[in-house]
């Protein structure tokens, strides 16, 4: 296998790993809110540094969480970045605190800790599935609530990932979780469960990005060792 073909293969294997984590995270989230959660567009992207703004960066204000994840030996060191558009974050708070949809319009301490908890659950279950598959254990650092420009939240991750790395490419596994209320046949319904008269429903989007950073080689090595790829 030539090098180029090989690197595509790596990315595929890495994507499988991400899918597994995302699946686990989605079902944990679904348990928490007692509603179906769908995973959409899971993909692995290899991006140039200056392209990131268009994909997940920029000056959009998001609510979310950056968590550093490590294994016991520090061979694996990456970041998980989870974020919600503002309105989605408010919806989640409504759901978790048992409010009618649309009631939360700002985040108080209770709201912030609800969001942190959701991020925590998503991060841990993503890590668990991921680590199981690789046969290691991965420990997330405690989550911290952030509300700021998406691009600004990314800076530290990029600095950590790209320091002393000669090319300016970033590998990221990216996926979106979606909760929408629908009928069994997939059609959206006008008035969902627990909906108010103005038609507001419990719907939200949530994004998860995993940056393996300098651990990418180690992850591939573990995959090969455990599953005998190649």
């Amino acid at each position: 296998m030539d090098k180029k073909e090989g690197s595509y293969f790596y990315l595929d294997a890495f994507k499988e790993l991400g899918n597994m984590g995302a699946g686990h995270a989605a079902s944990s989230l679904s348990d928490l809110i007692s509603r179906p959660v769908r995973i959409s567009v899971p993909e692995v992207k290899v991006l140039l540094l200056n392209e990131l703004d268009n994909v997940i960066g920029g000056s959009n204000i998001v609510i979310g969480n950056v968590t550093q994840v490590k294994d016991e030996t520090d061979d694996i060191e990456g970041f998980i970045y989870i974020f919600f558009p503002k309105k989605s974050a408010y919806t989640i708070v409504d759901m978790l605190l048992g409010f009618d949809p649309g009631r939360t319009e700002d985040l108080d301490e209770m709201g912030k800790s609800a969001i942190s908890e959701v991020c925590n659950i998503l991060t841990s279950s993503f890590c668990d599935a991921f680590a199981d598959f690789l046969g290691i254990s991965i420990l997330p650092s405690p989550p911290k609530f952030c509300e700021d420009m998406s691009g600004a939240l990314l800076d530290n991750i990029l600095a950590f990932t790209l320091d002393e790395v000669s090319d300016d490419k970033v590998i990221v596994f990216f996926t979106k979780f979606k909760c929408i209320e629908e009928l069994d046949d997939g059609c959206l319904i006008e008035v969902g469960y627990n909906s108010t008269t103005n038609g507001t429903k419990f719907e939200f989007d949530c994004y998860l990005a995993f940056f393996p950073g300098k651990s990418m080689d180690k992850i591939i090595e573990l995959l090969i060792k455990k599953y005998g790829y190649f």
Partner: protein
Amino acid sequence: MNSDINVGIGEYKIVSDDDNKVLKASGLGSCLGVFIYDKKRKIGGLAHILLPQSPNHKDKKSLKYADVALNNLMNDLAEKGAKKDDLVAKIVGGAQLYYVENDMLKIGERNIESVEKILCEMKIPILGRDVGGDYGRTMEAYLSDGRVRVISFKAKEKWI
């Protein structure tokens, strides 16, 4: 009307022929935006810097490092006709949004220090700054008069 030119992380852009233009760096967290401007000739360049210092002996090309980006930016500005004695700088960013368990990640602070040192060595005065803190910023540098608008989620809009 003004039109924006976006400057992504690890790149710089120069405008020399159109003073209606605005150079813009979005979502600066620990990154630092460095705007260098020749008021007499209305030539300006904006660099979006990720890291303070390139490692020794290698990697002298990547513009994500402060030293490499500023050197290249200065050369290009000179090529476009800017005069070194008329250049001034404004810097924005270098915040720390969250703590990560690793000292290396006081990256915002280190970016500020490094850029200040380099500009001092180049003898370019820093006329304005909005740096540090724990929040992200977007900067817009106006080529017509060299003013810089700083927008953030937590602080009020500011002109420097």
